[in-house]
């Protein structure tokens, strides 16, 4: 029990420390529970996308088409939602997300092209399809069908997505295979598991989560417009940053929880910088520095401990 408590506390150190820093710098904003609530809700969308992405990253795959898939799914789901309502919109988003990422996965598995190349190429295609879909001007949905992007529904969907990700990763053969591929792909091959099939399944699972994230994003903002020239790739960066933090926290907590902690921390930072009135260019600098420092610290524990030792060793020795 003590071990579990210790692990929980350790994994919460990062967001708590970041929160305390901003609480000191901007007490008016960070002392209110409502601010914390907003940051928590804002972390849901990147976290859902991040859960999909972490299956990919762990198995050694990159997916830069997530943003384009999210935009295209959002556009088609909005169109369906306008005609048929919320439930068909939800189903469309999930199925279409799975379908698009399955196509990407099949191309990857069939031609064995590096995932970065395949996903960038597919991002271009998905963006193009979005730009051509029904005139290419995107869709704005009325408020009555945006309920899924607002509490309590976004919270419920977020919890469901978390449970699915957690179960898939920890309690299924697929999750075991993903973790095994991440550790040693050659060994997995020798065990008779076909990594290509597992990786294809990663694309499908990722598509499921991106479909949910696209639905939440559409319902949260109320509209979705197509993107072109790989502009959609910028949508991948926040989820990726959260996953990086989650991967580093994986030593002390489950990665699925780690990803949410990572996304939540990023939301605290962005709200904190707004509260401090930092110009947007400087905000990006702060995020970049934070991520670098965090990864340097978490990825190089030996370097840090050797630095500590150097400090404690007496000079005359």
């Amino acid at each position, binding site marked *: 029990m003590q071990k579990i408590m210790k692990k929980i506390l350790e994994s919460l150190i990062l967001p708590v420390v970041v929160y305390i820093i901003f609480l000191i710098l901007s007490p008016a904003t960070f002392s209110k529970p409502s601010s914390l609530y907003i940051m928590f809700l804002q972390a849901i969308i990147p976290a859902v996308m991040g859960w999909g992405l972490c299956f990919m990253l762990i198995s050694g795959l990159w997916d830069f088409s997530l943003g384009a898939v999210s935009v295209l799914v959002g556009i088609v789901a909005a169109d369906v939602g306008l005609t048929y309502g919320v439930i068909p919109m939800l189903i469309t988003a999930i199925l279409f997300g799975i379908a698009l990422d399955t196509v990407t996965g099949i191309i990857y598995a069939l*031609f064995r092209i590096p995932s970065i190349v395949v996903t960038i190429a597919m991002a271009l295609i998905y963006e*193009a399809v979005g*730009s051509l879909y029904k005139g290419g001007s995107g869709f704005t949905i009325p408020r009555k069908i945006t309920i899924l992007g607002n509490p309590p529904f976004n919270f419920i969907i977020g919890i469901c997505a978390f449970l699915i990700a957690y179960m898939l990763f920890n309690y299924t053969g697929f999750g075991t295979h993903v973790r095994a591929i991440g550790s040693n792909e050659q060994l997995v091959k020798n065990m008779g598991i076909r990594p290509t099939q597992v990786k294809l399944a990663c694309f499908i699972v990722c598509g499921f989560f991106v479909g949910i994230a696209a639905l939440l994003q559409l319902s949260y*903002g109320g*509209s979705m417009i*197509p993107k*072109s*020239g790989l502009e959609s790739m910028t949508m991948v960066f926040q989820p990726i940053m959260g996953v990086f933090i989650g991967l580093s926290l994986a030593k002390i907590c489950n990665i699925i929880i780690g990803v949410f902690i990572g996304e939540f921390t990023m939301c605290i930072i962005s709200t904190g910088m707004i509260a401090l*009135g930092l110009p947007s260019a400087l905000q990006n600098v702060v995020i970049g520095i934070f991520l670098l420092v965090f990864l340097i610290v978490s990825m190089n524990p030996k370097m840090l401990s050797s630095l500590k030792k150097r400090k404690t060793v007496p000079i005359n020795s």
Partner: protein
Amino acid sequence: MKRVRKLIALILMCAVMFSIVLTGCSSVGASTANSDMNSKVTSAQATSLKKFKVGLSIWGTSDALGKSCSDLVKSSVEALGGETIVDASGLMPEKQISSVENLISSGCDALTICPFSDSILPKVSQLCTEAKIPFTIYFRKIQDLAVKKAVESSPYYVGNCCEDETTAGYNVTKSLADKGCKKILLISMPRGDTTAENREKGVNKCVQETGMKIVSECRDINQASDATKAVESAIAAFPDLDGILFASSGTFGFSGAIQALKQHDKVGKIFVASIDFPNDLQEAFKDNTIAGMCGGHFADPMFTVILLYNRLAGTPLADKPVTLNLPFTYLKSAADADNYYKYFTGSIPLYTANEVKQMVKFYNKDMSLEKLTQIMQNYGLDDAVKRHKNLVK
């Protein structure tokens, strides 16, 4: 099996290239509304002018402003018997240079561009001069004197059309001040964009004059959900926030901001002002969320195309480069918004085929630079309603 794989890989590559070409450069077909208008013009006139290809280099055609710009240019060029090649290149300097190169290699006889900043114009001018094709600039004026001198020295530079962005920035900010706003969130483009910077000059001037404060700014809006998030964060950070100002990005960010206001029960407590009209203004007007709205300037590239067409037809409106000014349209009520969507972006083009032809000297001998300027000075909601009240149902 290897052969099949290679074949499929080839097909995929072609699909990728096709998708790039499809979104980047799209040639234009006929629009039904315009075909009806064309019937009023004699066929002898329509065939007497060569079919020119006009290139439109634009940041994108998926947002409300970009789509309206490209639709109007397409319908106008079509009315003049020409063809439009649209290249949606984003607002990145290097992409815009590639866009000009692409349009030239696509066989355009003339092109118009909305440059990211003055810095790319010497290169654009060089490319057009080498290709011997006339070019114009829309939504921008050249501010750097050295660049202006260099560009204007090209015999192929025909002129530019722009709006008074600084005054627009001032006016929409003033509308927030008039509503009693003190602390505002500024949403705009990344730094370096000439138009956004000019608007922000007006914003800053008004902020200083009225004692308002920009408590936060956001410059990376890609989707409505980004605006929702920015507004939510600003509400969390500044509980006394009472104004949101879209100096840019309002076309797609507006609905996201409204979504956040409704979610946090801030409708009527936080006011929104925007330059560039989004698609869903009526409800926001009814909710009393809007402090000021200015935009509707999407006819700007069409007027630069008119300059080009007069030049291509051998009847230039001026011997030297000209600067045209288009006034912004201000919307004050839901009825104004209704009229805007009906008369500006409805099924009938803002300028019908007949009206467009009358702006080209080849078809209308009385046309002159002064008359074109007069048409532009009249530009606005009242003018559109007056011209088309019998056409629009």
